[in-house]
């Protein structure tokens, strides 16, 4: 088994030795073969310097052929030298092409680096532009939004102001309505009050009228009674109705001749008059004294004065106030009959008592 294991290896070794041995030994040629094999197995050299390697291979084949055909050692050495140098040329050519390729690559690389840098700059600039545009766009949108908001706020404000105005107008109208209603109410109340007052007044007036009527009726009754009584009294006083009112004449017989004192019968008449005046305190009296034409005027005037005063004194004695009694002596100035006979002269010697009206007025003598 052990022998079998090693057998293939020894076969290979024998084959290699025989391969070498198939070509007659030449140190230069062997060296050239070694160099050539090293170059051929180098991927860079076989790829980049195929032509130079082929020339080296041709020279090696020529050298191998020369050695095989037993040509001179110088010839084999010559061909081996050429091959060796051609391998070196191939190596150098490969190195050159590799370097040139590196140059091209480096040049491309630098171009790409510059391009990349430019592209990056351009990209950055573009990005910046885009960012600026985006910022501008955003700012613009924000501005639009702000403007829209402002506009909306403005509109809301205007709407609110309009609402407030409307509310104010409504309030004003409502106030005016309320005031109008109030005025109407007051007017109605005033009318009602007025109507009530009128009714009251009418009622009062009716009551008053009724009362007045009753009073008037009563007064009329009383007046009628009083008038009847007065007339009866006046009749007993022999009062005569004249233009100046009621006149009571006290005749000469009631006085003593040429005397001023009343006789008893005269006193009775005066008493009746005093009773009457006490009953009617508003009434006043004017007492006029008259004489006949016998005797001097001055004597007759004094006599008439004294007789009138005598009646006044008698009335005052009977309790009649002096302020209600006026006296006047006329002497013989106003005769009521001719002074030609004794009877007529007696008629002229008299005292006339004029009664005032109910208000105390006495018509003066004409």
């Amino acid at each position, binding site marked *: 088994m052990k022998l079998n294991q090693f057998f293939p290896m020894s076969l290979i070794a024998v084959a290699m030795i025989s391969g070498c041995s198939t070509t007659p030994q030449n140190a230069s040629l062997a060296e050239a073969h070694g160099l050539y094999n090293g170059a051929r197995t180098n991927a860079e050299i076989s790829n980049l310097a195929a032509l130079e390697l082929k020339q080296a291979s041709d020279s090696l084949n020529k050298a191998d052929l020369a050695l095989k055909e037993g040509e001179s050692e110088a010839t084999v050495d*010559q061909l081996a030298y050429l091959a060796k140098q051609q391998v070196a040329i191939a190596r150098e050519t490969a190195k050159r092409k590799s370097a040139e390729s590196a140059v091209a690559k480096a040049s491309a690389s630098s171009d790409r680096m510059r391009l990349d840098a430019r592209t990056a700059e351009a990209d950055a600039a573009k990005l910046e532009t885009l960012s600026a545009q985006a910022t501008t766009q955003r700012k613009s949108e924000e501005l639009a939004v702000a403007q829209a908001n402002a506009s909306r706020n403005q509109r809301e404000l205007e709407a609110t102001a309009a609402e407030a105005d409307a509310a104010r107008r409504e309030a004003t109208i409502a106030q005016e309505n309320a005031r109008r209603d109030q005025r109407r109410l007051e007017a109605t109340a005033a009318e009602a009050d007025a109507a009530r007052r009128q009714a009251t007044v009418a009622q009062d007036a009716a009551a008053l009228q009724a009362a007045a009527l009753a009073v008037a009726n009563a007064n009329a009754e009383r007046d009628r009674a009083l008038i009847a009584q007065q007339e009866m009294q006046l009749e007993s006083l022999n009062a005569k109705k004249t233009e100046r009112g009621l006149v009571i004449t006290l005749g000469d017989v009631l006085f003593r001749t040429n005397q001023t004192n009343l006789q008893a019968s005269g006193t009775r008449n005066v008493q009746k008059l005093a009773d009457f005046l006490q009953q009617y305190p508003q009434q006043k009296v004017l007492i006029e004294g008259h004489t006949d034409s016998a005797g001097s005027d001055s004597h007759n005037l004094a006599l008439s004065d004294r007789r009138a005063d005598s009646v006044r004194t008698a009335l005052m004695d009977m309790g009649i106030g002096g302020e209600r009694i006026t006296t006047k002596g006329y002497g013989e100035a106003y005769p009521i009959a001719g002074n030609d006979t004794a009877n007529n002269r007696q008629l002229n010697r008299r005292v006339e008592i004029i009664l005032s009206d109910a208000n105390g007025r006495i018509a003066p003598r004409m």
Partner: protein
Amino acid sequence: MNQAMQKMDAAERAINDKDFELARQLAEKAQVDAQLAAAMARSAKANKAAVALQEANRVLNLELDRKAP
């Protein structure tokens, strides 16, 4: 390149010596040496350019990074 020039000088000398076989061999060697020298020079130049560009890119990158906020 020095090797190529020395080989070319040797080849010319061989021509003068009427050793045309040697001259051919030397000329072939000089040609391939010169080709190798040219390839090396071009590869060195390319490598130098690549290194310079890579350095410039590094600086540019730093600058851009610093410029970026």
